[in-house]
């Protein structure tokens, strides 16, 4: 099992309320994009902070870019007092997003999210509409470069859905 799968499984097993967003969400829906980071949008509640910390603690999470000699604990207190966190773990990079520009937070995107079967467990994944909206808002060159593929994939997906309805 890959590091990404192990992280997702740990979060699901600990009943964390989260949605996979960004490139991995697109990949699970058929995109050929590649990324180093697993991006997750999480529900901002004290209970969920506890679940997140419990789920990822075994993988040694630490804030990315913070010198190792500087003590910057990543815990429930940090989650409660920040919004977005870029982490390094023993299983790879993990970005925890409380809010995403252009789309909002967990509660705004959960209604459009899809439930995807990853074999051993089910996982909530942002819709292509949500991913496209967030990339259009971020509007960095690397985001713009992904839009033609994401929009084409959405068109293909819509065609597939229509085919299923027939």
């Amino acid at each position, binding site marked *: 099992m*890959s*590091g*990404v*799968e192990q992280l997702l499984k740990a979060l699901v097993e600990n009943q964390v309320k989260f949605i996979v967003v960004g490139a*991995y969400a697109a*990949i*699970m*829906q*058929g*995109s*050929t994009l*590649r*990324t*180093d980071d697993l991006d997750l949008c999480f529900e901002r509640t004290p209970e969920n902070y506890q679940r997140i910390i419990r789920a990822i603690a075994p993988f040694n999470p630490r804030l990315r870019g913070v010198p190792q000699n500087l003590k910057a604990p990543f815990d429930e207190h940090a989650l409660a007092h920040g919004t977005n966190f870029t982490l390094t773990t023993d299983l*790879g990079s993990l970005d925890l997003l409380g809010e995403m520009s252009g789309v909002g937070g967990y509660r705004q995107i959960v209604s459009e999210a899809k439930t*995807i*079967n*990853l*074999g051993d467990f089910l996982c909530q*994944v942002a819709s292509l509409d949500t991913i496209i909206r967030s990339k259009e808002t971020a509007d960095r060159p690397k985001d713009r470069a992904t839009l*033609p*593929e994401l*929009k*084409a*994939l*959405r*068109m*293909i997906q819509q*065609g*597939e859905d229509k*085919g299923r309805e027939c």
Partner: protein
Amino acid sequence: MTRATEEKIRQLIDDPPEGSAIAEAKRFGVDLYSILENLKLSPAERLRRAAEETDFVRRVRGKRKQASR
């Protein structure tokens, strides 16, 4: 994916409606047949393949860094 769905997607890729997202992606150089191949896999298989490729690139980068020290 059924053969009929695959054929329908293939036709869309080969001859996309003018001005459509697929036509735009083709102009941009997106390999749409790779998307078609991905759609034949399960989400778990897509995730595993991407993660394996990323891990491979990370290992190569790590070795290159070690070599340059």
